[in-house]
């Protein structure tokens, strides 16, 4: 029992550190990619190729003056970014980062915990994510921040519905709520994206909206709302908001890869003739390759598409995404039942 707990603790710390590391380097990646798209150089001063830029940014954030506006609600002003950061980190627990590792005859899964309701857990954490933004925006006592927070929260709750419905269709085909089991079912190349292409499209659009990424970045749309819900924030508290966005992006990419793109599975994984641990190691790398591809995809979209208008965004969420997701559920139901009969 103790050994299992120690392994779990090591995994927890490792996942937390990796999430922070990837989020930090996503900021660097984002700026490099933006530079590439706009024919510039991007960060290139701190270290070779500007590779130390995230570190420099972090130190700068910590050393900056901390400003809490005089009219703000001080407790909530601090609680807002802390909550945003906390909720961003919590989903990593249920994601299977790899298959099992064999040490001395015993198998240890590379997933921190495979709870039975993994998907519902992830969904619950997403639904709590609204609070960080809402509390921060309201506590600032600033009109731009309030508007940004309102926009962000209505946008997030609207797209949560379509996201939930798209996962329902996935659960209908898999019959499982545990993410570990869903990934195991996609062994080899039986990836869910083949069976749920429409569900995947709905899910990824909703993931963009939940992360407040362009084209859904109205909450912080700087041309009309200055900085949105974090207008009044400075130093590390602003850093937490920005960092939470990148962690969310990383976690969303991980969930997309796990649910729809086979997680750590890759084609011909059984016919290579490698040992179990070797396959697991390759699987972990494959999983991270998929995750990094989706992070790149998030950035690609950001620097390609302009943002929506607010009425377009709400219309897309309620009048297109939700009906589409319900149709997807119905089609999935009919097809699954017809195939089961034969």
């Amino acid at each position, binding site marked *: 029992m103790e050994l299992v707990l120690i392994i779990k603790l090591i995994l927890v710390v490792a996942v937390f550190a990796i999430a922070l590391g990837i989020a930090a380097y996503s900021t660097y990646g984002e700026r490099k990619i933006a530079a590439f798209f706009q024919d510039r150089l991007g960060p290139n001063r701190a270290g070779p190729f500007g590779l130390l830029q995230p570190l420099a940014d972090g130190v700068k954030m910590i050393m900056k003056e901390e400003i809490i506006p*005089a009219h703000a609600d001080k407790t909530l002003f601090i609680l807002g970014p802390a909550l945003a950061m906390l909720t961003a980190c919590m989903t990593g627990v249920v994601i299977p980062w790899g298959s099992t590792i064999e040490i001395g005859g015993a198998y240890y899964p590379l997933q921190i915990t495979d709870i039975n309701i993994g998907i519902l857990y992830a969904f619950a954490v997403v639904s709590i994510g609204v609070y960080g933004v809402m509390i921060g925006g309201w506590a600032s006592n600033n009109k731009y921040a309030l508007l940004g927070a309102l926009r962000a*929260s209505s946008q997030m709750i609207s797209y949560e519905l379509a996201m939930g419905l798209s996962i329902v269709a996935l659960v209908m085909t898999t019959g499982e709520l545990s993410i570990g089991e869903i990934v195991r079912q996609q062994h080899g190349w039986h990836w869910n994206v083949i069976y749920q292409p429409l569900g995947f499209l709905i899910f990824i659009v909703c993931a963009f909206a939940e992360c407040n990424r362009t084209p859904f970045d109205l909450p912080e749309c700087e041309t009309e709302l200055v900085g949105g819900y974090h207008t009044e924030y400075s130093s590390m508290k602003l850093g937490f908001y920005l960092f939470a966005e990148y962690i969310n992006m990383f976690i969303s990419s991980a969930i997309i890869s796990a649910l729809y793109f086979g997680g750590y599975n890759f084609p011909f994984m059984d016919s290579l003739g490698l040992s179990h641990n070797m396959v697991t190691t390759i699987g972990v790398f494959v999983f991270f390759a998929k995750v990094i591809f989706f992070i790149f995809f998030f950035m690609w979209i950001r620097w390609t598409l302009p943002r929506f208008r607010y009425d377009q965004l709400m219309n897309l969420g309620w009048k297109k995404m939700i009906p589409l997701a319900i149709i997807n559920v119905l089609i999935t139901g009919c097809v699954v039942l017809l195939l089961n009969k034969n």
Partner: protein
Amino acid sequence: MILLNSTPADYLPIVMMFVVAMGFVVTTIFFTHKLGPKRDSKIKLDVFECGIESVDNARLPFNIKYFLVAILFVLFDVEVIFMYPWAVNFKDMGWFGFVEMLVFLGTLLVGFYYIIKKGALKWQ
């Protein structure tokens, strides 16, 4: 009844992750608070309104639309949640379960149609 051998102990790592993340957040906020310079002034602590003298505070009434979206979200969220236990058992229940859910969804889609026709989700 299906035995899945799932126990509350599976949830312990979630508590661990919470403690680790909480520790990180608290120490970082504490150190930024200690390390950063402090040069407050009345103007600096004032509300930012693009350099214009601020008028009143931000405790403003806002559009009831946001409130309506939140109410409708609660209702549809309950609907979505009810679909999960159904989706898990979907293959076992067959057409019976499918029709059962169709009736449930049908009633709610009538409501959805009403909401859209009424223009409740129309934003100018």
